[in-house]
């Protein structure tokens, strides 16, 4: 009677346990799904909310969804835990009742015991062990052989594929006899199973594993040499690869403010060294500028880019390098978030102080209103956005810079300090890093430190470097102060930064350590430029000096009438430097630092000219013109 009760309890609890476990498992997976809590929908809605604030409907929706998600998460979590307790309880009931049911059960052997012949069992067990061992070894070997080239494949570039394929082919062919050997041993063993009675074959058969393992040994030696070759092949192209990526410097382009990477260096060849606007000597073309702006021209291919702005219009211009004709222009308008009235700026900065940047596929421009527009090379607008209206008492001035397909924006204003990188083609934010620096007017620079590039930003009070791939700060060195306008420059992994009322400081980009300081003559607007042995600085009060790049010792100073706002550019071993009154100074970029030539060009110049093969494009206050040697 009691037994029946126990049996029934057991059955009921068993059924209960099974159904309950199924329920719990489904619940468990549901919790798993909602466990990150912020579902993608809510996440994207929140993003949307930040982009266009004030949408109360959207906010209400987010709040509701968020509440639901949290509720679902905590409730199902709670269910899971109580569920597990109930389950354990039922299991206890199950175990106890089933134990009671079987309490007096004795597993008594049947009358006629099977005659257990231990020897037969042992023989059979031996066979099993032998087979499994061989089988496992063979499978293991096969796995290694097959998986090795596959694993290597991930790290390889497509170029090696033919080689890889042949390697795979080789290795699979070596593997095949292996497989066959295994199959053979199994085949042979089958008849032996029938003749267990005679123990002698057992010896032969158990020997087989070792026989089949011996060829493996030989093959191991062969195969061990093969992967080494593969590694060699892999490591060699790895040396060349970064070079190709890192130095895409096309000499015929001048992609950003102060050249590609914005270091004040140009690889242009056959650069003109003499011209005159009034007489028209060496002038290819000259065009009046429709809208004012203090930004510098940028050249890619046969296109010249620059911007202009006033209170109502902000326009990106594209001119032909060949004849100075306008190719297209793009207006920054209808951008969400753009302020109705342009922020106040001073005349020497204006709303179009930042220089545009291009990567040869897209060209982007930013204005003092925070409006950012990006077009393809044919003037089709790709995207536009406002990254926030800069709170800047002179006007936003940091130029854009491109790194691979990233557009880098130094946004150091009174309201916010950050550096952001956007996808040039789509405008998506790739990374954004908050900065501790105060308002700054200088522009970002890409410094090549070893194989990797560092994004170097001046600021008040520190110069800092970031990883351009992810925006992580690499180092930061405080030595600046006041209103920082000049940008940094770099050569051979050493970064030089200077600003008036602070110092000229050389920093080892590898670890961010300060190499030396100098404070004899410091620039205010014009950025310094450096060679391996010298650093050249042009001040706003007319003094141009050279420092020793290794020690910071002042080497030579030259005084001129006039001010230097336009930054010096080194091309073909010469330093080209405009003073604001339009006099071109050409120095030798060597230890001598001699003034090679100095001549009047005709119009006032604040912008930095663009240097390309055979040509220089100069933006003056009123016009833009192209100098050529041809």
């Amino acid at each position, binding site marked *: 009677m009691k037994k029946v009760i126990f049996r029934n309890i057991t059955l009921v609890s068993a059924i209960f346990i099974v159904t309950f476990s199924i329920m719990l498992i489904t619940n468990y997976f549901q919790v798993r799904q909602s466990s990150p809590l912020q579902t993608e929908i809510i996440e994207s809605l929140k993003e949307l909310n930040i982009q266009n604030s004030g949408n109360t409907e959207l906010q209400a929706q987010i709040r509701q969804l968020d509440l639901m998600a949290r509720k679902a998460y905590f409730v199902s979590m709670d269910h899971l835990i109580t569920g597990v307790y109930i389950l354990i309880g039922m299991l206890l009931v199950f175990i106890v009742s089933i134990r009671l049911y079987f309490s007096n059960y004795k597993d*008594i052997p049947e009358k006629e015991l099977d005659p257990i012949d*231990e020897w037969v069992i042992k023989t059979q067990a031996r066979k099993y062990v032998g087979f499994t061992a061989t089988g496992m070894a063979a499978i293991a070997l096969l796995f290694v052989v097959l998986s090795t080239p596959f694993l290597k494949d991930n790290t390889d570039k497509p170029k090696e594929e033919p080689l890889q394929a042949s390697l795979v082919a080789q290795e699979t062919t070596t593997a095949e006899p292996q497989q066959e050997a295994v199959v053979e041993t199994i085949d042979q063993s089958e008849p032996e199973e029938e003749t267990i009675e005679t123990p002698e074959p057992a010896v032969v058969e158990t020997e087989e*594993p*070792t026989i089949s393992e011996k060829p493996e040994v030989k093959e191991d030696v062969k195969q061990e040499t093969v992967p080494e070759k593969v590694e060699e092949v892999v490591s060699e192209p790895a040396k060349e690869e970064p070079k190709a990526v890192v130095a895409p410097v096309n000499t015929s382009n001048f992609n950003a403010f102060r050249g590609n990477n914005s270091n004040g260096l140009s690889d242009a060849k056959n650069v003109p060294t003499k011209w005159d606007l009034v007489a028209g000597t060496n002038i290819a073309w000259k065009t009046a500028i429709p809208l004012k702006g203090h930004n510098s021209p940028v050249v890619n291919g046969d296109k010249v880019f620059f911007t202009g702005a006033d209170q109502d219009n902000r326009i990106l211009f594209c001119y032909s390098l060949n004849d100075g004709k306008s190719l297209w222009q793009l207006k920054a308008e209808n951008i969400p978030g753009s302020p109705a009235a342009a922020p106040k700026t001073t005349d020497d900065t204006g709303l179009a102080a930042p220089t545009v940047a291009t990567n040869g596929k897209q060209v982007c421009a930013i204005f003092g209103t925070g409006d950012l527009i990006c077009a393809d090379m044919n003037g089709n607008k790709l995207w536009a956005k406002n990254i926030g209206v800069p709170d800047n008492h002179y006007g936003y001035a940091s130029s854009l810079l491109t790194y691979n397909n990233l557009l880098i924006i130094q946004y150091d204003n009174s309201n916010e300090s950050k550096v952001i990188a956007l996808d040039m083609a789509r405008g998506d934010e*790739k990374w954004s890093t908050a900065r501790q620096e105060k308002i700054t007017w200088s522009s970002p620079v890409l410094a090549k430190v070893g194989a990797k590039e560092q994004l170097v930003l001046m600021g008040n009070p520190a110069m800092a470097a970031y990883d351009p791939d992810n925006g992580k700060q690499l180092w930061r060195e405080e030595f600046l102060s006041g209103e920082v306008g000049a940008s940094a420059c770099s050569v051979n992994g050493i970064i030089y930064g200077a600003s008036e009322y602070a110092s000229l400081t050389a920093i080892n980009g590898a670890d961010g350590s300060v190499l030396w300081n100098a404070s004899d003559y410091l620039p205010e607007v014009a950025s310094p430029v450096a060679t391996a042995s010298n650093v050249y600085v042009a001040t706003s009060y007319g003094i141009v000096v050279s420092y020793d790049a290794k020690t910071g010792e002042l080497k030579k100073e030259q005084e001129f009438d006039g001010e230097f706002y336009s930054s010096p550019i080194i091309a073909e071993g010469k330093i080209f430097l405009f003073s604001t009154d339009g006099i071109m100074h050409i120095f030798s970029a060597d230890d001598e630092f001699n003034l090679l030539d100095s001549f009047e060009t005709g119009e006032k110049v604040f912008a930095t000219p663009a240097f390309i093969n055979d040509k220089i494009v100069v933006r003056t206050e009123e016009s833009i013109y192209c100098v050529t040697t041809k």
Partner: protein
Amino acid sequence: MKKILLIISALLMQMAAFAQNRFPKPDFESGYQYPDINYAVPNESLWLFVDIALLVLLMSFVSWAVIKKQTRKPIIWVSVISVAYFGFFRSGCVCSIGSIQNVALSLADSSYILPVSVLLFFILPIIFAFLFGRVFCAGVCPFGALQELVNIKNYRLSKALTTALSVIPWIYLIFAILYAVTRSSFIICKFDPFIGIFRFGGDFGLILFGVLLLITSIFTGRPFCRFICPYGALLSLFSRISIFKVQITKQQCINCELCHNACPVDAIKPPYDNKVKEKRLSGVKRILNYFIILPLLIVAGSVLMRYFSDDLSRAHYDVRLYDMIQQQEENPQNIMPLEVEAFYGEGKTVDELHTNVEKIKADFKFYSTIAGGFIGLVIGILLISLSTKRTRKLYEIEHADCVACGKCFDYCPQNKFDVKTAKLSI
């Protein structure tokens, strides 16, 4: 290549700089007091003491019950206590099975400091096994106890198969030690099937595996202990030669065969008279053959594992990290894996990592070779032991396999106490 590595090494990050005070401490005017927050540290050392004390107590109790009293009842209660305390309450960590890895690591690497409790968890059951047999397995080990508690009926598995499967714990043990001494991973802990059950959560696959094992153990005794547990393999070495041994009965065995089906782990061997149909010489020949094969097996295992070592070494974090970094360097991605990002942030150089990885790989090569040799040795010894013959006149316990659960006591009619119950049940 080296140049690039050097250059990457230059990418330092000042993680510590983040902890600086960007915002000054506020000067409160309203007399605000900082809230007093205390984070409780439970009295862990007390619990560890309780653990050890209970371990010794329970094992002594089982020894007393099994060796002296020959009764099973206390063992059930020990099992219940063990499952409740070591299992559910202490969540199964650290257990003796897992402690193998800590001990192995400590022996191989002197910089690893072994906690006393872990050492005791490792050595005490072994000492008890040496003295009294596998009393730890009987019911003190929560895993064994759990399986024992749900076990109802013992369906026999093919003896040849179970014998062959008994190699698995050894191989598992060898791999666990290999991965532990190379500081790659504690695989015993990682693939622990019951821990998820004790903790009400964890990896779903493992819990499922644990539940399946439990369901299996309803119908056949202790599948985990017999076919997986590496610590059981270790204990079997000592229990084989233990000083006091478990006996089915203290009286004379009458070969009644009643106990034969009682054993959940097939440790009771029936009488066997050696009526071999082969010549003595051929038997000797076979054994000699195996002795010749043994070194070959060891060498083959070593070579095979040595060749494997590179793939095995991928279990180590640094080796995988190095691979990831290589990929990143060759094919730079804007969005890096977290590991790579953290590596660059850490400020260590790829060169350092490379030398480290080379060291790990060399370690792996060395230890895998030894491990391979041991695998060969285990297989070889098993084959040899399977080709020896022993004559038995009575039912005997195979002490290496016996887990001292005491189930056989009830069956033996010679055990005075049990004669009555046996009569009752019949």
